[in-house]
């Protein structure tokens, strides 16, 4: 009569069901496991590759040792210079990640940290070269810092104004501003490099060395910024407005928040923090500038901010993880004559594992015959 008798459908093999009952510690355990799986798998691959390229029979342990030595150096022999380099890298990456976080919380996709940092660094360099020797050091250093803050803020606020008033796409706008900043720096280097296309390190206006450690001040500044960013986002009225605008512009308007003002103000903050990161690189490390000074960390920062779920403390941990992988894998790859791109591949795979594991935090997978299983419990 009808098809009923002939149609035989089988129950699907697996269902995916949502869950929202996982405790926070369980979720973090899963994330930690994901990081370790990614890390060990990529280290094993590195062992095999390095054995082939170097012609030696390397063990897994050799590679792990190489990785950690690249990051921490010979700590047990009392040599800390390698560790300080790691801390410096982490500090700059963290500073950039903190910078994009308020913008991201507002759902303003600031992809211009690279350019904002570079422009802030350029402003610092400009002061160091042009005011060096003309004003006393105790005045010059604050001026350098101020200039970098203003430089970064200007570079950040331009896309914000256009976004607020003309609804331009902030992602494209901030990305494009990166290229403009790079080209301005390229021109500046050309104009000031006396034909060599390199600006010789300038010592005037550089950040002072404290405690005998060149990078100690940088690390302290970023530590302070981490706490300040946390307090700003969590406890200040402005931080609250940022969250409301990010969650729903309709709600923001409904309670009388001036959305345009918040967008512009937040991007000034975001740009200013990027400017400080640029200053840390120029006045706190290189004492010079070139187009690769920020070196792509402005883009890595986007990922770090997301991985840290926009919480400055988790972001700090993620920045340390990412720099550990970057420096460690690059060092190990280098030692065995491998392409340094392996470092990027390793970071990519570990991050991918971390992102993918969210699936197991949010969903459970049930198989066909586990009907009486614990899903209902």
């Amino acid at each position, binding site marked *: 009569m009808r098809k009923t008798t002939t149609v035989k459908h089988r129950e699907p093999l697996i269902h995916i069901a949502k869950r929202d009952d996982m405790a926070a510690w369980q979720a973090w355990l899963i994330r930690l496991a994901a990081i370790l799986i990614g890390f060990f798998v990529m280290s094993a691959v590195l062992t095999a590759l390095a054995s082939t390229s170097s012609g030696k029979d390397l063990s897994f342990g050799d590679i792990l040792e190489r990785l950690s030595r690249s990051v921490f150096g010979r700590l047990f022999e009392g040599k800390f210079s390698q560790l300080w380099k790691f801390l410096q890298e982490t500090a700059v990456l963290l500073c950039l990640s903190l910078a994009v976080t308020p913008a991201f919380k507002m759902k303003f996709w600031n992809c211009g940290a690279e350019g904002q940092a570079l422009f802030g660094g350029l402003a610092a360099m400009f002061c160091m070269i042009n005011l060096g020797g003309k004003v006393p050091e105790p005045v010059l250093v604050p001026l350098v810092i101020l200039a970098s803050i203003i430089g970064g803020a200007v570079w950040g606020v331009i896309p914000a104004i256009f976004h607020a008033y003309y609804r331009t796409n902030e992602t494209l706008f901030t990305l494009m501003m990166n290229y403009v900043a790079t080209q301005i720096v390229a021109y500046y280097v050309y104009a000031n490099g006396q034909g060599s296309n390199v600006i010789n390190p300038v010592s005037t206006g550089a950040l002072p060395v404290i405690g005998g450690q060149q990078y100690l001040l940088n690390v302290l500044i970023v530590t302070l910024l981490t706490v300040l960013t946390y307090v700003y986002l969590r406890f200040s009225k402005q931080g*609250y407005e940022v969250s409301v605008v990010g969650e729903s512009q309709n709600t923001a308007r409904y309670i009388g928040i001036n959305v345009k003002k918040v967008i512009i103000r937040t991007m000034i903050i975001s740009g200013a923090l990027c400017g400080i990161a640029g200053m840390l690189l120029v006045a706190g490390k290189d004492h010079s500038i070139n187009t690769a000074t920020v070196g792509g960390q402005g883009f890595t920062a986007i990922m770090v901010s997301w991985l840290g779920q926009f919480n400055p403390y988790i972001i700090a941990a993620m920045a340390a993880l990412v720099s550990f992988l970057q420096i460690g894998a690059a060092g190990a790859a280098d030692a065995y004559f491998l392409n340094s791109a392996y470092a990027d591949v390793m970071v990519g795979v570990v991050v991918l594992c971390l992102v993918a594991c969210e699936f197991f935090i949010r969903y459970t997978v049930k198989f066909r015959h586990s009907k009486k299983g614990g899903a209902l419990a």
Partner: protein
Amino acid sequence: MAQKAAIELKNITKAFGSVVANKDVCLTVNKGEILSILGENGSGKTTLMNMIAGIYFPDEGQIFIDGEEVVIASPKDAFDYKIGMIHQHFKLVDIFTATENIVLGLEDGKFDLKNAEKQVHDICEKYGFEVDPKKKIYTMSVSEKQTVEIIKVLYRGADILILDEPTAVLTPQETQRLFDVLRRMRDDGKAIIIITHKLHEVLSLSDKVAVLRKGEYVGTVNTAETNEAQLTEMMVGKKVELNIHRSEPKDAVPRLEVHHIDCSNREGVKVLDDVSFIANAGEILGVAGIAGSGQRELLEAIAGLQRLDSGAVLYNNPKTGNMENLTTKTPLQIRELGVRLSFVPEDRLGMGLVGNMDIVDNMMLRSYRRGKSVFLERKGPKDLAEHIIEELEVVTPSASTPVRRLSGGNVQKVLVGREIAASPTVLMAAYPVRGLDINSSYTIYNLLNEQKERGVAVIFVGEDLDVLLELCDRIMVIGSGRITGVVDARTATKEQIGLLMTKTEALTWEGGEDRA
């Protein structure tokens, strides 16, 4: 006709994570019978129907069609078993004609619109549908679109029809017409399942009623042997007082005056056309109308969220006795004038609240600016949150739970609670009981009444005419952005309001006829 089961469900269970949406549900629908599925929001009605329609797959249980066990794993399977579902949200292509939409997606080899049109015409004749097969969807009213959806499933040969809340978008007259058609289909031997939470519709239309409560199957009763009180008790689990207490307005003075406002949307289409009215203190002014007739824009215009093309909004300040002009003011400026205007918007989580924030942070939305400090003060909002949770019986794990995790009724209690806590002089509420269970709905009605008795001018936009007639003092009817009538809620009838809802010409305004 012999009683023969068209579809039978046995012990159907479905869970989403830890939430059990349906537990051990058993149902039987015979051929030539209309079954109503009655239950409050969140009781699992739609989930159950989606399992019959092949959208979800049950965790446990069996489905029988014509006495044989079947597995429905996709909408395609459901179609093979001649099951057709009419969803709450229509799935039609706007620029196609009725017929084109009806044949869309059918794979029967040839594409013969002429023949299809004739068949559509025959179906219309048979069941008494009133629709032009050549009419384009975008020129149709909501009820015509619904008709097209029903014809679509009939054209595909459905013998079992499922309608999900079909009357939610219809006027009383249109509802009547739909019911006539459904009765004719029943007489033709179709099995019809209709999902609803309106009791009087259940009683007038169906042969049997199946009741669900919190995902559990309570039972099936014959409509002829039951009454409203019994059904409510089955639905809620306890006896509920279904009367709304309505007091006479005291010292009703004009509080808010709206003079000839015009308003256009982003596309430049006029959404409010010469709207004028007065809301009195100590009175509930109801606003009735088909959804999308300009109710939202009207409230947003008063709250300072909509740009007006012309007209004025005036507020009679009870403290100073001055008339404040609210036209062109932003929400913040209105508040700074000392106007205590509270607004419960239609879109609770998209406008009234922030879904990802917890209850305490949502309490702060109105008050966070207070004080000179740059830091937030969370103590007051926390106390307020705890007070509201206790007073309004909000079901939540704690005050620091994100509001999006709460059920619809609890979300609404949080929002209304916050708006009332601001001790308003004007309280506007748009569809405040949409999606709420009966108990929560009555909590909200009582809150509105309480505010009215305190001398607040309450403006209540509602969709259930029975409630509007019981709760309000006056009812203003809005149709296509115009005020088509203002009636006294104590004497008006549903039919009268229904007619005004579809009327297109504006009320001839006889110099403030409704001034108190």
